[in-house]
């Protein structure tokens, strides 16, 4: 799967981001290839989430380019697109470090909101549907089917009608991933999906992500849990203080002295996580 010649999907070129006097990202370049799981790791404050927010359109980068290859061979310049179009046109979906579900709405409703764009078109932008016209019913049935198929995959079908906020933490994480997948993305960006999960939930998460990859969606992943990262990633980018310090396969990164130094310099625990014995 981790073929070296896989097509580049997302190219980050010389990305820079400054907040006032603080440089959060400095000249960051890397590539995420189609059909791969690319992980971005690094100590706290390395700029991982900032990079994510630039890619998904929540921040406008101070400098640099972000280009996403289109199916027809052209590319989207993500840094110049309005935030919502990055998800809608370019097909980049994301989850959040601190889960952002529509907590008061049901699980099913969360997944339907994610399919808002096609549904809204089917309602004639709200006008026809009030009058009961348009092919809205069919569109809604399809949307519900899609939601159900995802609920089955994440094992939440039985809780479809419960408020999303009432789910246990691990289930909320899975639901957020399913919601992002309902956008039909080409690139799914996950911000620490394993944070706060227990070991068995983490294992399930790994399986889910591998399945998403197998179905053709590429993944970009920020994660602190080195077990997960080393086991499922095809390609790892290591950041430290806003710069890239290493880039390669899990085996290459693990052996890179820069990486070990950065983690040891930061805190010992993470360095232990990185230690070589954790191989699937």
């Amino acid at each position, binding site marked *: 799967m981790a073929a070296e010649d896989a097509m580049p999907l997302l190219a980050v070129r010389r990305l820079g981001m400054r*907040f*006032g006097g603080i440089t959060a990202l400095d000249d960051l370049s890397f590539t995420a290839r189609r059909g791969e799981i690319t992980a971005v790791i690094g100590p706290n404050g390395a700029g991982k*989430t900032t990079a994510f*927010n630039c890619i998904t359109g*929540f921040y406008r980068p101070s400098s640099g380019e972000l280009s996403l290859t289109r199916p027809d061979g052209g590319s989207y310049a993500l840094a110049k697109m309005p935030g919502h179009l990055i998800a809608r046109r370019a097909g980049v979906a994301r989850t*959040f470090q601190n889960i952002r579900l529509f907590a008061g709405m049901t699980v099913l409703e969360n997944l339907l909101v994610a399919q808002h764009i096609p549904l809204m078109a089917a309602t004639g932008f709200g006008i026809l549907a009030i009058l009961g016209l348009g092919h809205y019913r069919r569109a809604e049935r399809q949307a519900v089917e899609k939601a159900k198929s995802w609920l089955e995959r994440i094992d939440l079908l039985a809780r479809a009608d419960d408020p999303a906020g009432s789910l246990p933490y691990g289930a909320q994480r899975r639901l957020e991933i399913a919601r992002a997948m309902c956008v039909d993305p080409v690139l799914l960006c996950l911000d620490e999906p394993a944070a706060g999960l227990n070991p068995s939930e983490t294992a399930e998460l790994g399986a889910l992500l591998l399945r998403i990859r197998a179905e053709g969606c590429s993944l970009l992943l920020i994660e602190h849990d080195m077990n997960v990262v080393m086991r499922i990633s095809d390609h790892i980018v290591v950041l430290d203080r806003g710069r890239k310090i290493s880039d390669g396969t899990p085996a290459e990164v693990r052996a890179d002295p820069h990486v070990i130094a950065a983690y040891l310099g930061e805190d010992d625990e993470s360095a232990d996580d990185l230690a070589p014995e954790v191989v699937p």
Partner: protein
Amino acid sequence: MGLAYALQQLINGITLGMIYGLIAVGYTMVYGIIGMINFAHGDVFMIGAFLSLIALSGLASLGITAVPLALAITLVFAASLAALYGWTIERVAYRPLRGSFRLAPLISAIGMSITLQNFAQVSQGARVKPLAPLLPGGLVLTRAGGFAVQLSWMQIAIAVTTVFCLGVFTWLVTRTPLGRAMRACEQDLKMAGLLGIDTDRTIGVTFVIGAALAAIAGLLFLLYYGAIDFYIGFVAGVKAFTAAVLGGIGSLPGAVLGGLLIGLIETFWSAYFSVQYKDVAAFSILAITLVFLPTGLLGRVDVEKV
């Protein structure tokens, strides 16, 4: 004549702006700490004006007519009783709603505003209450083409009082443990609480200080315009809030700066365009500022947390 007229407007505008600035400080402090628009703040200002009127009338009937003494007593009386109002409002209408959902305190504040307005109307009557000028006359700065630019004693008194109060206030916020606690709560209420700051008390004190400043503004308003009624709080409150937003909500110097700007805009607009639309001018400035400069003039740049 043109320049002299403009100079006079500048003086008048700054005077009015100081009154708005004093009220705006209360809005910006409360917003900075608990992130709510204290809708009743304008009505505390109105109560302060009534308390001042009652004190001045009472002192006059007791025969205390030395103006500086009467003003000093009135100021302390109005500020301390308005502070009691501020504390009670927070305790009764806002504290039980802390941590409740976002709109609840705002609705409660609107209810409090209606309550105070009607309380003043019921207890003091709906008629406009006039006050004879305490400090007539003033300095003639310059004469040009038959137009005398005048700086009245009253305006000087207002400026001196405002600067003095803001000085005391600044000292309180920057140099005392109480001020440190307030600033800590403003940065992060929850964290401040974890570090052992009595956040409830700090918030209460914030309301007390804000209310006292608003009452002083009420006294100055009464002296400057010589007439008050129960409705002055609403308009002055909205304008002072505009001032706080214009200056950058949460920023104390910003509130004063915003107050001065709103006072100047309103005065110049009335002088050169139309008195009827002066409020429209102030409100339009508010909308334009928010759209093009959401953090205000001196506000912190807020990076959206994702």
